[in-house]
């Protein structure tokens, strides 16, 4: 696979965003339902649970699951 400018930029951005302490996927998953509910209630989950927010900014899989969960919950509430 050829290295593209976009991929290099993406890698440098990820390095730049790295925090000394980041929670892993397990800790994020454990709190994701609570985070999602706060979001849907119009509260600010990123303030109450900043480490979850930070993880979602850095982990594509967890972010995908979070966005799908929001969609699912909105559908059920409708």
């Amino acid at each position: 696979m050829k290295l593209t400018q976009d991929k290099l930029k993406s890698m440098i951005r990820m390095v730049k965003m790295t925090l000394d302490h980041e929670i892993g996927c397990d800790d994020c998953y454990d709190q994701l339902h609570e985070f999602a509910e706060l979001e849907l209630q119009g509260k600010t989950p990123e303030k109450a649970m900043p480490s979850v927010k930070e993880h979602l900014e850095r982990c594509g899989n967890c972010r995908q699951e979070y966005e799908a969960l929001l969609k699912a919950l909105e559908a059920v509430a409708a």
Partner: protein
Amino acid sequence: MLNWFKKRKNSGKALSNDEWVEQLTPPPAEQAVAKLRMILIRGLKPALYKYVDRELDQFVEDTTQDALLKILDKVHTFRGESKFTTWAMKVAVREGLSELRRKKYNDISLSDLVANDDESGRDEINQMSFTDESPGPDRATHERMILQKVQKMIDEELTDKQKTAINALMMHGIPIEVVAEQMGTNRNALYKLVHDARLKMKDRLMAEGIDPDEMLNQL
């Protein structure tokens, strides 16, 4: 007997968290399971439709079934920080997306990625390798220098496992749980491995007095 009656009596209205837990704790009440099943299906369809190219209904049914088993197995772990149905939906969403990722990347082999990239990656660096349109000579020189710098950092700072992981995740965009399975580890451990790799690279940049923003501006 009384317990069963209580479980049946509450079938019409929305259940509280305690009621969900009580009615789904083994042996689970049939009506509670059926109720939860309907809720999960209602949520999963819009959540997963953009990832499923055909037979969405069947896929959602199968996912719901698998998720229900997991939920019933783990109902005692629910701690009440959200609605029970939110927690259950989280389990179901993960179940569905995990299955989709497994299917999509079924034939992937990480060792093939490494074998194909090794030499071509170095040739890229030597030939001012970006695949998009050619920049002017000065910019091209800057870009090549950055590429070389980053490549050197990767070569010198990261372990072989970290290089394999970074290659698969960042260069090829393979989902973390697929990569984790291929590397014989789990998603959480792999995230930590990559986090460590990113920290090393960040520390290296700092040690060399390189500002990542400046690097990005030159690309």
